[in-house]
């Protein structure tokens, strides 16, 4: 068993809007061990990005607020740290890369300046040493002519190159945890593979754990040790990567897996999950997935299932596997 690095327990992040309170993250538990890559999968609006922003405490300027639960990182409760202590962790021990490489870099500052900021802040490197470290990082992420690129501006680089810069920036202080929020979604398929390969290589070399947020199960299969499937602000299934792909339990996970095309099977139509994610203001009672579920039965609409073990290192939130509970009810 590897040491626990990040433990999210019963996290609740709500958004306060004029129409009401939106429980974007509604009691989420996720554990990430040292050096492990954990995929967080789900449709848009399931709360996966909000979970990551809660960990980074970057909900400022959004109407969102963490209202319950705890986030332990290396034994420290991130939610109770002062702003100053949190800044020392951000970009240093926990780094983050975002979905949009085109807009995630400041257009009026040079690449070098933007990476140097983190290096100066957390490693205390200044001047020539900082410059050398930046060039080293740029070379590490496979950027050609690194010496020139440091003095260039983001608009002079392609999307793939910018995402490499983001990775260089994130990895520049050797973080223990890298949160990657859809890091390849905005990139060409060929570039996607390169970026994933790079993240894999760096995390192996530096023993960096990765929290990989994506809606792409192909990316998950490529990268992850473990997968957490989220739906409507809750974790609905969690398992080892092989277990999940070979033996999915939750109807939602099954649906997601059926929607991936497979080379060896000849099918005329891909599977799809009917309906859409429920409006978070009007989530149904009982199981949140019930209205779209192919295996739904009456009790699903009344009783909210718990996240319970269904096998070794495999948990699922579905009444199908909770017959005892159902009988009791």
């Amino acid at each position, binding site marked *: 068993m590897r040491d626990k690095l990040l433990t999210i327990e019963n996290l609740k992040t709500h958004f306060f809007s004029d129409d009401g309170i939106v429980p974007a993250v509604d009691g989420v538990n996720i554990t990430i061990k040292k050096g492990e890559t954990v995929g967080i999968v789900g449709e848009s609006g399931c709360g996966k990005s909000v979970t990551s922003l809660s960990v*980074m405490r*970057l909900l*400022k*300027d959004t109407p969102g607020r963490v209202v319950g639960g705890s986030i332990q990182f290396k034994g420290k409760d991130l939610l109770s740290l002062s*702003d100053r202590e949190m*800044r*020392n*962790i*951000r*970009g*240093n021990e926990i*780094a*983050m890369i*975002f979905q*949009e490489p085109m*807009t*995630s*870099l*400041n*257009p*009026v*500052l040079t690449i070098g300046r933007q990476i140097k*900021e*983190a290096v100066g*802040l*957390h490693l205390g490197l200044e001047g020539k040493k900082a410059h050398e470290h930046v060039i080293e990082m740029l070379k590490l992420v496979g950027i050609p002519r690194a010496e020139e690129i440091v003095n260039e*501006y983001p*608009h002079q680089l392609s999307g793939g190159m910018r995402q490499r810069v*983001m990775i260089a*920036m994130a990895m520049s202080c050797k973080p223990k945890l890298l949160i990657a929020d859809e890091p390849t979604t905005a990139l060409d398929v060929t570039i996607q593979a390169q970026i994933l390969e790079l993240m894999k290589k760096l995390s192996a070399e530096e023993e960096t754990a990765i929290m990989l947020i994506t809606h792409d199960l192909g990316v998950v299969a490529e990268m992850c040790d473990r997968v957490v499937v989220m739906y409507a602000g809750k974790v609905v299934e969690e398992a080892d990567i092989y277990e999940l792909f070979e033996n999915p339990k939750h109807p939602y996970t099954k649906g997601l897996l059926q929607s991936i095309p497979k080379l060896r099977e000849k099918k005329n139509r891909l599977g799809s999950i009917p309906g859409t994610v429920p409006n978070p203001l009007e989530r149904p009672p009982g199981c949140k997935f019930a209205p779209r579920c192919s295996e739904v039965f009456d009790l699903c609409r009344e009783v909210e299932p718990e996240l319970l073990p269904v096998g070794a290192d495999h948990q699922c939130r579905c009444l199908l596997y909770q017959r005892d509970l159902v009988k009791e009810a």
Partner: protein
Amino acid sequence: MFQYFIKRLAGIIPILMIVSIFIFLFVHMIPGDPARLVAGQDATQQDVESVRKQLELDKPLHQQYLSFVTNMIHGDFGHSLKTKRPVIEEIQSRFMPTFWLSVWSMVWAVLFGLLIGVVSASKRNKWQDYAGMFGAVAGISLPSFWMGLMLIQLFSVKLGWFPTGGLDSWKSYVLPSLTLGAGVAAVIARFTRSSLMDILKEDYIRTGRAKGLHERKVVWDHGLKNALIPVVTMTGLQFGFLLGGSIVIETVFGWPGLGRLLVDSVSFRDYPVIQSLMLLFALEFIIINLIVDLLYGVMNPQIRYE
């Protein structure tokens, strides 16, 4: 960059030519007979006609325009019809007071405007924001003659720190420049606030925070550098307006500036002075625009002048 600069400088000449045509036509459309004004109310028709001939006002318009332009190219802007002094002297003595007053007003305006704008944007919907925007609305809506009189009352009459008017020393600049700068500061503050508030929603601001930067650094370094780009345009325009002189401020503070010269000249139909002043204002705007465009290139690396 240098080539671009030269190109733009050369571009000023045709613009000035076109502007001069419009100015010439507009000035001649002002009703009233300048020859009659120069000759005086009691002059006979004959006197008026001889004055008209002397001033070459009897010639066809295009000839008048041609001699206006030719003289100007030779540095001769004519003589004021009212004072008979060369126009260039009339303007020179008024230009520097207006210029320095505008510069000082801009210094206040940029200083206070940016500060209020940035604080308001980063403390959105908190008391700092409300206080800042209350000040800005007051700055825009309080009439400048009233604000000027209040400042005179407080700082000149009561406290005796600054002169009540006129132009004697650096102290004379303080009150009029504060009065003039208040309105501009308010505009800059509101502009900076809205621009910065948009910028603070950008992804790269979140990147800055994710790096562990202090919020102050995120706002002033990453935010403001981007937010300033539209603010600079607006500030340049405001400076252009200030350089035209302000009749209200000049009247309240007894300031020897261009605003009063222009109004006096218009009421006297002093064609040579009006024409030269308008040409000067046009030139000021052209130069300010050029400076603003060059500043763009410095501030926004995506704009490169080749």
